[in-house]
């Protein structure tokens, strides 16, 4: 039996973006949050290093430096009006988080502590700046906990372990969602005035990934099935320092605290690739440098990983060479206790998974799939826009990693995602409530849950000639090899064909579990369909963009080409075919320049 509910605003996802949206929407409208995970299990909780804001607590910093760094980091593909808005809002929103109770680490003066992160600089001296506000190395955990606590305080309505499978659209307006209740397997139809998607990313498309099992691109596939395009899907970030083979993230904060990357000769190779900021260049630059070093045979023992060294003696050696000083002018030096105190979780991860003690041994690291710059196109108010003229789709909002505002353009700077979540989550929540107040409930089709039921029945009725795990493995392998850190025409064309083939084969995947209660077999298989759709669009957009920019690095077109390619990609997935179009980038103050670190 399908159950029906009505809420003025429904928020899908309970990570940083969803919870921030919920806090603001619930002040103005009857709001419910649906999440396939318990809110505190959301991926925001894994974020480590910090949230960027030019608080200037330890040294001079300015919001417009943050803006420029983000524009530059985006390789000029970010929309400058939105970036400026985010970096200005950063300062009050970080204070707001503190007011909510977030236990930031503190400076000697009792202010919020800040650390260095890749690509964040003092624009005058060009040197790294202390901008990332942090709570040890669990900033995301504290953001997630704090926002969830505020939701409890404000008695926000939660539907925990409800997985949304469809967006209901009537006459071009979002009017509801269909969700499966995990505990019962029943379908629920939520009739709404406004829907906010805050479902996170799709990093499980790749093999070595920092992303959670839940990062399956549901929020990419569901809207695409309703004819809504995705923006800039070719831009996916590979973080330089994942634990070798496992992909578990080692925060850039390690390098912020003075850690360095070393090759098999013991050389700090980032000197060569980014002479000014070295190990703190932006992520695309560092990942490519590692890749090139490995290709030249300088991976550790010739293998596909490098060393990340944060032993005090190493940190101090390079701090001396770099003449790094503390804000008070004294020389920068660290002890093992400093490292343990500032990066306790990293120490725990490497001890648990590698048996390596990072204050005594270097850590083996390799680039790991990390963050989706692309996603559902929105305005800076979270409104979803659906064509090259940026026409707003009434009632549909998106925020967080699933959205593409675009503030990250072709490459996101570290600490800017947590910032994006709270800034644009808030906007989306505010706007959704405001819109809901000014409109009536739209018409719900009688067969609202039919499309969902068909999808699930198709899987349940398959005889199972194909295995989901095989298809998932082939997808991950192909995407890692062909649509990874470095790309070629041939490889991407192959990957695209392969994804189409996998989509076809996916139609024959069956499941063992035919029950209703916690049928994770069925839902994981449904999620695989979302991953494949995400991968198809990624491969095609990458194939079509004939230049290198940010995270999209082509061996056959190694240069950025602003004359032809300074534009956002929009892609529609229709009947298994991808249609691609483009829309302009918003340039306000900063004319594109060559990007050097």
């Amino acid at each position, binding site marked *: 039996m399908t159950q029906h509910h009505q809420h003025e605003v429904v928020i899908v996802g309970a990570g940083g973006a969803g919870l921030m949206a919920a806090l603001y929407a619930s002040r103005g409208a009857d709001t419910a949050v649906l999440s396939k995970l318990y809110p505190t299990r959301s*991926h925001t909780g894994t974020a480590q290093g910090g949230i960027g804001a030019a608080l200037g607590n330890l040294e001079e910093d300015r919001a417009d430096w943050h803006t420029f760094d983000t524009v530059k980091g985006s390789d000029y593909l970010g929309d400058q009006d939105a970036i400026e808005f985010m970096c200005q809002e950063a300062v009050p929103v970080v204070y707001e988080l503190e007011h909510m109770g977030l236990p930031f680490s503190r400076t000697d003066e*009792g202010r919020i502590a800040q650390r260095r992160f890749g690509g964040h600089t003092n624009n005058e001296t060009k040197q790294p700046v202390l901008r990332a506000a942090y709570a040890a190395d669990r900033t995301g*955990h504290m953001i997630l906990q704090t926002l969830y606590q505020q939701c409890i*305080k404000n008695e926000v309505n939660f539907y925990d372990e409800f997985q949304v499978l469809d967006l209901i659209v009537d006459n071009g307006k979002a009017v509801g969602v269909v969700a499966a209740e995990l*505990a019962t397997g029943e379908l629920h139809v939520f009739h709404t005035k406004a829907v906010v998607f805050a479902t996170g990313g799709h990093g499980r498309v790749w093999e070595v990934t920092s992303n959670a*099992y839940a990062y399956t691109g549901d929020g990419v596939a569901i809207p695409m099935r309703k004819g809504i395009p995705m923006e800039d899907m070719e831009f996916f970030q590979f973080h330089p320092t994942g634990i070798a083979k496992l992909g578990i993230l080692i925060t850039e904060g390690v390098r912020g605290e003075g850690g360095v990357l070393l090759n098999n000769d013991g050389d700090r190779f980032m000197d060569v690739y980014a002479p000014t900021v070295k190990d703190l260049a932006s992520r695309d630059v560092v990942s490519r440098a590692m890749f090139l070093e490995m290709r030249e045979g300088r991976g550790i023992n010739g293998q596909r990983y490098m060393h990340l060294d944060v032993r005090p003696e190493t940190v101090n050696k390079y701090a001396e060479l770099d003449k790094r000083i503390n804000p008070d002018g004294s020389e920068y030096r660290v002890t093992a206790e400093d490292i343990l105190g500032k990066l306790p979780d990293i120490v725990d991860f490497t001890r*648990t998974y590698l048996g390596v003690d990072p204050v005594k041994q270097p850590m083996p690291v390799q680039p790991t799939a990390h963050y989706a710059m692309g996603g559902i196109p929105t305005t800076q108010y979270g409104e979803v826009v659906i064509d090259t003229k940026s026409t707003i789709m009434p009632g549909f909002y998106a925020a967080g990693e699933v959205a593409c505002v675009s503030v990250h353009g072709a490459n996101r700077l570290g600490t800017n995602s947590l910032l994006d979540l709270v800034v644009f989550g808030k906007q989306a929540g505010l706007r959704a409530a405001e819109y809901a107040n000014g409109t009536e409930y739209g018409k719900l089709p009688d067969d609202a849950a039919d499309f969902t039921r068909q999808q699930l029945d198709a899987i349940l009725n398959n005889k199972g000639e194909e295995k989901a795990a095989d298809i998932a493995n082939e997808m991950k392998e192909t995407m890692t090899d062909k649509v990874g850190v470095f790309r070629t025409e041939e490889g991407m064309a192959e990957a695209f064909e392969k994804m189409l083939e996998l989509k076809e084969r996916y139609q024959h995947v069956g499941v063992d*579990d035919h029950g209703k*209660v916690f049928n994770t077999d069925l839902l994981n298989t449904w999620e695989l369909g979302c991953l494949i759709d995400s991968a198809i669009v990624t491969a095609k957009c990458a194939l079509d963009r004939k230049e290198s920019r940010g995270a999209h690095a082509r061996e056959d077109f190694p240069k950025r080409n602003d004359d032809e390619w300074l534009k956002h990609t929009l892609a529609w997935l229709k009947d298994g075919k991808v249609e691609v179009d483009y829309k302009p980038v918003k340039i306000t103050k900063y004319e594109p320049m060559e990007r050097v670190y």
Partner: protein
Amino acid sequence: MEVNLRIFRYNPEAGRNKPSYDNYTLEADPTDRVLDLLELVKSYHDGTLSFRRSCAHGVCGSDAMRINGRNYLACKVLVQDVGNNITVEPILGMQIIKDMIVDMEPFFESYRSISPFLVNDEIPEDGKERLQTIEQRERFDDTTKCILCAACTTSCPSFWSNDEFVGPATIVNAHRFIFDSRDTAPEKRLDILNEESGAWKCRTAFNCTQACPREIHVTQAIAEVKNALTTGRLD
């Protein structure tokens, strides 16, 4: 290496209405996570096997389980840590729904009962952050790490024998606010923990501290709360 994996199964809907065990012999690396083995079984042997998981590196709190009789996160314990005969069972003291999946609602209800949010409506006039010294921040650092995995609560003999007991996880989260210099409502939480179902139910069995995958000194946090209850002091 070869691993003998014994997995608890329970799924009334499919006729498995008595707890039983399935056995698998699997090829594994010593550094594989127990979660990797469960994934392998689910992918290639029996898709009906059900468990919760997400982050796969010990920070989301989804996959607390009993592994060889002790609570762990399946993603944070390696084969080499537990040997090649591995038994996986759901955490104790909660209603089992299916295989490793238990009803978490009462756990979260208990968490919510102690007002787990900062109470302080005063904001500095300049709109900036409230000040807190490094020492004040350090005072409650340990208990901020909690990921609500329930490993502690479901390893607690007092909780097993009396499910009215709020349980260690709830006390840990109360501690996080009681000892935060910015909070203005410690008494309210202390009053709740002074009730019959509160902190006094703790018999210092230490299981919780052992079970906590975040290495929180759970028993010590509870002792500090008890101390505050007796002395009325928060230092």
